[in-house]
């Protein structure tokens, strides 16, 4: 499932991730697309605290793609 949060400055890509992760079942894989450089710090930090898994991150032209798995309900 792709969460295209490019250009989302308010409330921001991480807040979009918080929103969708609560709606989907455990085990769902998400791709979060973010053009906010702050996400490079925030996304791994939040995932660690929230106990979900960061499977990988790739840099694209003008945005980053984070692959994430929901680990618990």
């Amino acid at each position, binding site marked *: 499932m792709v*969460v295209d949060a490019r250009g989302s400055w308010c409330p921001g890509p*991480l807040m979009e991730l*918080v929103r969708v992760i609560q709606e989907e079942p455990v085990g769902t894989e998400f791709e979060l697309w973010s053009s906010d450089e702050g996400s490079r710090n925030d996304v791994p930090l939040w995932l660690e605290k929230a106990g979900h898994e960061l499977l990988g991150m790739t840099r694209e032209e003008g945005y980053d793609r984070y692959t994430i798995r929901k680990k618990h309900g």
Partner: protein
Amino acid sequence: MAKRVVVVGGGIGGTTVANRIRRALESEVAGGQVQIQLVDREGIHAYQPGYLMVVFEKMRPEETRRDESQLLHRSIQLVKGEVEKIDSTANQIVLKGGKLVPYDVLVIASGSVIHPELIPGFPEGAHSFYDLSNAIKLRSALHAFQGGRIVVSVAGMPYKCPVAPLEVTFMLDDYLRSRGLREKSEIHYTYPIPKVFGIDTVAQPMQRLMGERGVSVHVPFNVDKIDPAAKTISAVEGEALPYDLLIAIPPHRGADFVGASGLGDKGNWIPTDKFSLRAEGKENVFVLGDATNIPISKAGSTADYEAEVVTQNVAALARGESPTARYEGRVYCWIMTGLAQATYIKFDYLHPPHPPTPSFAHYWNKVIYNRTYWDLTARALF
């Protein structure tokens, strides 16, 4: 037969877009080739940004409401009724009670709905200011407050006006100072992610300001439940905060009829092309304001800028042309940083916001906007 343009929702987005479409199609409407209708549940227009001002006695409750019929151009027909379902195959709206409203072009501006009941203990344990009656109750609670521990908390995503929790925090600080209660009070702020706002350009100056104002920050804090008897709010992260007064932002969802019509995602938000503002897969349906799933602020300002684009695209379709206008993600929102000071954020899809130093002048611009809203935005007389 006249082309029927129907707008659902008489809030900020629906009202301004209906008036602008009327103007864009002035000769067609006057000549009877196009007919515009607006469907709204009560026919009362609520200016929700006023609710925060009501809490701090800067606006009176009645200043936040007007009859929708006074705001719409006389050639737009107001249909009072609750939309139960949209049949986008038959191009018609089904109202509660069974009345049908057929359309050729549909604009959905049905906003968002607050759902405090999704957080256990919220309805009994928390104050809020996201509807008028709760804003009035909070005003009374603050009036009676004699000092203690106040917690401001965002209890679910998404929520409209993403900066409102920051604003209420700063206004509260100023309010308590003005009443000589700040020394006897603590203010605690919680947010679901590891900082006080979604992106650094805003979070950093706001967190600095919270430090200066003595606000304690608890992040990340994803609200799990509220215990009204013990007066605690707890997070899935394990932290529990006691409170004397809790001000929380409830979770939001899209309108129920969106789900019932098969037009929405899991939260009843309508998948919408972020540039054309067309509902995905529907040639003749446009969406604006809180109702979309576009990952930007659910704000009146967003609806206002989007209305320009929807107007052009609806007018093009009504004339049998192809719609080409694009929304570039523009939004402009003030952030109150006290009872008489503010900053603002202005951004689009490509440019993040950089709020300037808070000042009285920015606050004054917001006051002027609140006063001129009814004519400039709702009636779209500019």
